[in-house]
């Protein structure tokens, strides 16, 4: 369906990434946000709390991040598209209820404007070190989807995509911005409402008598009934059967949890969203995401000018990882260079897929600022030299 015009600020704007993310959420149909504002994500909820009254949305400033995430789960179960916004320290506190959201199959979006960590770290400065936490932060087995924008324009576009994916797969979607993109101001073009595709909640068409909340209907993702609509309603973080009632058995665990994993892992190419450039004849391929992809772009240009055929894979959907693409490239390139604002996270995933067929050069940096393009260039040249 098309976006509700009430939430769409059509036009060309000069916005920072945080504001653009907020606009993307409103355009996607988000009408409930609960959060505990934290630098460098505060502007997202500033924007939303100012604009929500014009479109019937509700923002609650909660007492902390645990409560924020709990409120988002509850909000979503009323059928309202729901989101919370935070940075590293708050992200850690949200993990318990992110697991609850995953277990109950609650569509929602969690925005993390990453700053330098661990702990309170660098409140006002950039980091990209929560990428593994986004995937593994809550206990137990589950899969999520994570996206990473490289510009304010993408903060808008991909927030819409994040909501759509959360509705299709009924998972919490991690929107992994970083402080640089969040606080960077650029031209953002917001299209007309009828040019924005949004995915509505897939409500069940079964009768109240026959509906069971976790019974599958030809699809790995169950249909949804809103709390309060009169449908049989039970949902829990405990391992549950198709009625949503707790059932403590290995068989039920297998049926319940394996599906949480399969619905994402089995999606394959449907969830691959990358930007590939010059990989056809590349000797070295740079794999990057978020702000680092823009910095890497400069290094790639310099490497090409020095005669090294250098390709680029930019991860837009980071989780699930584009395994097929990386595996295929590993068989024909001389090496991967993975710059990121941490000491090795996505590079480990690349190493896993390269599986020893080509070397992986991590260009690490603890955050606080972006890479020097020259540091990335140096590794590209080194990778090319080793190959020669």
């Amino acid at each position: 369906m098309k976006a509700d015009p009430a939430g769409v600020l059509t036009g060309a704007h000069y916005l920072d990434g945080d504001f653009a993310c907020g606009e993307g959420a409103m355009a996607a149909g988000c009408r409930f946000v609960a959060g505990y504002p934290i630098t460098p994500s505060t502007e997202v909820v500033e924007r939303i709390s100012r604009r929500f009254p014009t479109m019937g949305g509700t923002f609650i400033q909660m007492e902390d991040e645990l409560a924020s995430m709990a409120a988002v789960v509850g909000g979503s179960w009323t059928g309202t598209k729901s989101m919370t916004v935070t940075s590293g320290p708050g992200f850690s506190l949200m993990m318990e209820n992110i697991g609850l959201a995953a277990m109950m199959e609650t569509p929602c979006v969690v925005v993390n404007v990453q700053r330098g960590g661990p702990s309170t770290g660098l409140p006002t400065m950039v980091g990209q070190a929560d990428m593994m936490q986004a995937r593994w932060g809550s206990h137990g087995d589950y899969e999520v989807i994570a996206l990473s924008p490289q510009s304010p324009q993408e903060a808008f576009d991909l927030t819409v995509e994040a909501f759509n994916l959360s509705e299709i797969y009924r998972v919490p979607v991690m929107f992994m911005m970083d402080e640089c993109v969040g606080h960077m101001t650029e031209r953002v073009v917001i299209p007309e409402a009828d040019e924005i595709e949004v995915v509505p909640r897939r409500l069940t068409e079964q009768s109240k008598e026959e509906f069971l909340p976790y019974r599958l209907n030809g699809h790995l993702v169950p249909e949804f009934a809103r709390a309060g609509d009169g449908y049989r309603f039970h949902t829990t973080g405990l391992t549950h059967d198709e009625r949503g009632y707790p059932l403590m058995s290995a068989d039920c665990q297998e049926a319940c949890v394996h599906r949480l994993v399969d619905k994402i892992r089995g999606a394959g190419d449907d969830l691959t969203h990358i930007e590939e450039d010059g990989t056809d004849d590349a000797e070295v391929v740079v794999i990057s995401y978020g702000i680092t992809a823009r910095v890497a772009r400069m290094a790639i240009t310099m490497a090409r000018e020095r005669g090294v055929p250098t390709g680029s894979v930019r991860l837009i959907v980071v989780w699930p990882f584009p395994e097929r693409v990386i595996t295929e490239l590993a068989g024909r390139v001389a090496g991967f260079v993975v710059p990121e604002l941490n000491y090795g996270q996505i590079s480990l995933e690349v190493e896993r897929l390269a599986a020893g067929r080509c070397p992986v050069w991590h260009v690490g940096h603890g955050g606080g600022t972006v890479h020097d393009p020259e540091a990335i260039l140096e590794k590209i040249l080194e990778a090319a030299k080793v190959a020669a």
Partner: protein
Amino acid sequence: MGKERDQSERTPGRIEIRITGFGGQGVVLAGHIIGCACAIHADKQATLIQSFGPEARGSACSATLAVSDGEIFYPYIRRNDIFVAMSSEGYEKYHHELRDDGMLIYEQDLVHPTFKPGQKAAGVPSTRIAESLGRAIVQNIVMVGFFAGVTRLVPEEAMREAVLGSVPAGTEELNLKAFSAGLDYARREITTPTLDLKRPPAEGVPA
């Protein structure tokens, strides 16, 4: 950032700007207006980055802009072509970054620069002008007007539109007056040539 980069490299069609002042002077708003004028009201791309930190309350704070005719990949500035200094502390902190052939624009009552041969410099008593309009708070808008007149980075009208779109409702008239006052001062007092925005491309520099 690293130590050994070649700072003489310059990307054709790209202008790097730093604006600095003390917290409360409206440094970021000035940057926002200039960026907005370029990216929304004129045919350029502009990426604004604000230095954002605990130090940005009361002491030196700054905003940077990369302005380009084409797409901007690398959003940060390395050596600025234009340096706008609205406070002495900001000037001291950042003046070394200005290119040897760059342009310094400064609040002449607050900043006492060391002039370097090859660099252009243009001063304006923007605080006094703002005070003469009744509100010192519009000092930054006077500076934006002066900037528009001195650099001619984008047409005046684009800059004026950006001022209008960026200031609080009810203050438009005062801010437009401030903008015009800065612009007029530039026209009246500054006779040196404007910054040459169409330098020949340096060799081996990424476009």
